[in-house]
């Protein structure tokens, strides 16, 4: 899967080069969500045809919930320490906020 990292790096370089082509970038960003739809559809197809997964969906769902719960818990407990030690409720960062445009 090193290919994945190489391709992403190429993409970043390509994105930096094509930065001024606003319309093209806009189109690319719009296609992202459709690529994700297609991939997740195919993943669903694979999973639906896998009897072992289909018979154990309850366990799989529970494991998913447990893992996300502890991952969040670990992150926020540690972030509480970092917040108390280094951020102390005040910080002087810039406030430039914009709506997200990437897709998960």
């Amino acid at each position: 899967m090193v290919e994945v990292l190489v391709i992403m790096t190429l993409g970043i370089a390509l994105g930096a080069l094509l930065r001024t082509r606003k319309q093209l970038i806009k189109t690319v960003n719009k296609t992202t969500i459709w690529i994700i739809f297609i991939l997740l559809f195919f993943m669903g197809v694979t999973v639906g045809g896998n009897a072992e997964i289909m018979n154990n969906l309850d366990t799989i769902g529970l494991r998913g919930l447990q893992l996300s719960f502890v991952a969040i818990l670990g992150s926020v407990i540690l972030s509480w320490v970092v917040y108390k030690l280094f951020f102390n409720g005040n910080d002087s960062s810039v406030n430039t906020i914009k709506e997200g445009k990437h897709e998960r």
Partner: protein
Amino acid sequence: MKDSLLIVMFFVIGLLLSFFNLIPELFLHKDISTYVLYILMLVVGISVGSDKESLKILFKANWKIILVPLTVVIGSLGATALLSFVLHDVSLKEAMAVGAGFGYYSLSSILITEMHGETLGTIALLSNVIREILTLMFAPALVFAFGKLAPVTAAGATAMDTTLPIITRVSGNQYGVIAIFSGLVLTLLVPVIVTFILSF
């Protein structure tokens, strides 16, 4: 949020169609998803590379802000590693790979499916979708219990887009920049760390 639901819907439709044998043989070809994954990685890269504002934030970062994504990495991987000792059916490596999704469910689930198997890929999908949903639901409670940085770290990679509006609402606008920085760093780290963990 709307997009997350749509994504899950596409997964469920695919799942149901194949479960009831309504999919033509052609669609079952495994290579298709590998190539589509490559296209996705290229597009994600282009999107990050062309995003001047976010990259500016990335390079202007001070040492304090770097602690935020680091917190997410250590907190998520550490906690999921600990959980794997309690669960008899999930190994250390598997639990950490799921934790390394940092909420980026589309990419992590596909990568894990390709590299390790469909069962763990499905757990990664559910787990990381749930991470986003829990963050959206409990962001105000997290600020109350763990301070203003908590929603940013709970959000993981999604802090730069899908959970950004709720973060700035509950923690304040000044946390927007921290959220974008942390989300961007984690987005880039997901494929690196997942690949690394599963290579063992």
